[in-house]
């Protein structure tokens, strides 16, 4: 029998994997992709509880999160392209122009 806890654990697993991806990888694009993974984990949570309470509010919230993720991905990738054009690198360690 499926309870909301199943979805909570799944969402937690995906969230943790996303956070590990953000903290451990050097390639900025993969960091961005891990952030998308985190947003998806949250979406699963929202939809599971929307099903539990029988109202569509959770799903509407999830739609807004997806919209937001699209906007953020577009701008983030634009920034990466701009930086790549100047510095020829996409590795987070090498983006140290502001270091003293």
């Amino acid at each position, binding site marked *: 029998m*499926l309870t909301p806890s199943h*979805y909570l654990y799944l969402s937690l697993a995906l969230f943790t994997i996303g956070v590990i991806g953000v*903290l451990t990888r050097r390639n900025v694009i*993969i960091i961005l992709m*891990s952030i998308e993974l985190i947003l998806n984990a949250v979406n699963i949570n929202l939809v599971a509880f929307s099903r539990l309470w029988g109202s569509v509010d959770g799903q509407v919230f999830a739609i*807004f999160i997806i919209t937001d993720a699209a906007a953020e991905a*577009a701008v983030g990738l634009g920034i990466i*392209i701009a930086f790549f054009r100047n510095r020829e690198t996409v590795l987070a360690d090498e983006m140290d122009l502001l270091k003293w």
Partner: protein
Amino acid sequence: MTFDTIIFYFFAAFAVVSAIVMITRRSAVHSAVFLITTLLATAGIFLQLEAEFLFVVQIILYVGGIMVLFLFVIMLVNLDVAVRQIQFSRQAWVGAVLAIALGAQVLMAFRLGSGAFNLPAASTRAMQPNAEQIGAALFQRYMLPFEIASILLLVAMIGAVVMAKRKI
């Protein structure tokens, strides 16, 4: 083991394995492909939760839009030398341990607090027809966030175009 549970476990396992593979690939294109499979598995979970509209929206927007954007950019900024460099940062171990600690804390919160809410059994009342209900909610109760989201998308579109231009 009803059909429901089998489907859930299948998609859940697929999503988790896909996500783990995604964060460990050398090549960014491979990572993108595995993120696509993770997102498809998530869409499957939405379908299993009877959120049909969200299932299609996830596929059209996330997989069919955002990931195509990612793939285009990866192909634009691809450096052959990048594949042979070290993929994990110097603080990888610390970061991983911290992330797992965070996950363990949230897990403990779930276990200890699982009796705090009076969660009713999963109800299937008043969720059909799904698309019509979401449409009604979006255009009646959530009209303001809807309009703000469209302005947000406009701003993001202008921002992305300006950021990626060679000469402004």
